[in-house]
């Protein structure tokens, strides 16, 4: 299993991430918000809720409904994207909701909606992962009670090598891309998609590499949240 280390296009090791940057509370109007960056992929998430459900018939008597909307800014891609919903964004909004859903105490807020809006500002692979990472931070920032954070990243195969966090030229040349989202406390994979050709063994190896990678993402998320409370703590000291 990749014992001899090879050279990646951008010089990273096979299990090395692009630079990670995470911040919470980046927006003023949203009840919670976060910024997440993985190299050149950047997303912002904003959370509203728990709040009243419109339209009313979507309301659930025993829990909050979670609604997610993944959107790509028209300038986020190499070719300008058309604004508005696409089949791609409908699918990603759905798998994002399923990825996040298990960690939220939805049952504590019956008859309400929790709305998570993800805006991808720059797209260089793994946009759904970066969106999920930002979304979980935004939910925490909004004070929504959560069992854990979900951390997401992808691994794949490029020129026969199994590597973490495909990006840039690797993405266009890549044979396989496999994003996961991971719920560490329960050791649950809450999102998994794959396209490309792999053997059974490669599939399992890539899953493990991706799941292992989420640890570093999780650290970055927690660190961003700690920073928030430190700063808020400092503020408290002042007063």
């Amino acid at each position, binding site marked *: 299993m990749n014992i001899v280390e090879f050279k990646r296009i951008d010089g990273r090791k096979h299990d090395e991430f692009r630079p990670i940057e995470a911040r919470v509370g980046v927006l003023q109007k949203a009840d919670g918000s976060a910024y997440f960056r993985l190299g050149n992929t950047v997303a912002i998430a904003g959370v509203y809720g728990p709040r009243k459900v419109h339209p009313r018939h979507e309301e659930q008597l025993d829990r909050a409904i979670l609604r997610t909307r993944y959107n790509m800014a028209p300038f986020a891609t190499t070719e300008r994207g058309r604004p508005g919903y696409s089949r791609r964004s409908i699918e990603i909004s759905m798998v994002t909701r399923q990825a996040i859903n298990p960690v939220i105490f939805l049952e504590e807020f019956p008859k309400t909606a929790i709305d998570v809006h993800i805006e991808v500002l720059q797209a260089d692979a793994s946009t759904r992962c970066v969106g999920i990472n930002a979304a979980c931070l935004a939910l925490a920032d909004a004070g929504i009670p959560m069992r854990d954070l979900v951390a997401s990243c992808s691994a794949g195969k490029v020129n026969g090598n199994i590597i973490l966090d495909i990006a840039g030229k690797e993405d266009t040349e890549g044979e396989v891309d496999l994003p996961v989202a991971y719920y560490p406390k329960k050791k649950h994979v809450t999102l998994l998609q794959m396209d490309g050709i792999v053997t059974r063994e490669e*599939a399992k190896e890539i899953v493990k590499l991706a799941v292992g990678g989420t640890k570093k993402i999780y650290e970055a998320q927690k660190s961003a949240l700690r920073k928030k409370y430190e700063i808020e703590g400092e503020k408290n000291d002042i007063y």
Partner: protein
Amino acid sequence: MISTDPQLIKNIVSNGERLDGRGMYDYRKITIEKGAVATADGSARVKLGNTEVICGVKFSVGEPFSDTPDEGVLMVAAEFVPLASPEFESGPPGEEAVEASRVVDRAIRESKVIDFKKLCITPGEKVWMVFVDIDVLDNDGNLIDAASLAAIAALFDAKLPGLKEDGKIDYDNKSDQGLQINGIPLSTTFAKVGDSIIADPDLSEAEAVDARLTVGTFDKDGDVLLCSMQKGGSVGLTVEELEKIIDLAISKGKELRKMVANA
């Protein structure tokens, strides 16, 4: 509609049994009828238990995408026609229909069993557009696998139309040239109910399903390879469960491929 109590299903499955008597890793009865639609260039009607889908392939001549000027274009669309379920509504496809069509599309496209360069007519100008349209007629669960079976069977059934001198399709004279398809990519879906894994969940089981994994596999030179995966459901899967399903999907894929090959 009388729906089955999810807790009842969970109890049955936790005993290693299923409501309709199937084994945990058994699919429902599958029938594949190729050539079911006389107006299509290729077609198949698939029954998976009481789930029924019909797939029609139509060719047209169109412009290639600018980043693949010498390749034909594959378009997979699923319509969850409202006659198939009291829950389906008219209007643009919902997220479930969008997901199904995209998962079916990825398994076929990513397996590379179709050489799209062979569907180029004039590079940069004219290529064959392959429309794979899936109509769901009856929804008794696991639409993705039914759609996947119907799509690949319909593609195997398809014959390219002839072309007239002016480059337009000659609808009166079909060629006998089929698509060259080097392998049978198929989606196989397993679900987690409590701590158990079951194959091909039906609609009565759907409410009890915690998570779902659809694995696309295909055969190449005697080997079985994966070409796509898609997790569904609002609960997670452990890595061990994932690995178990991957193994199950590989062996179940072999079974299903035989049915497609013999259809």
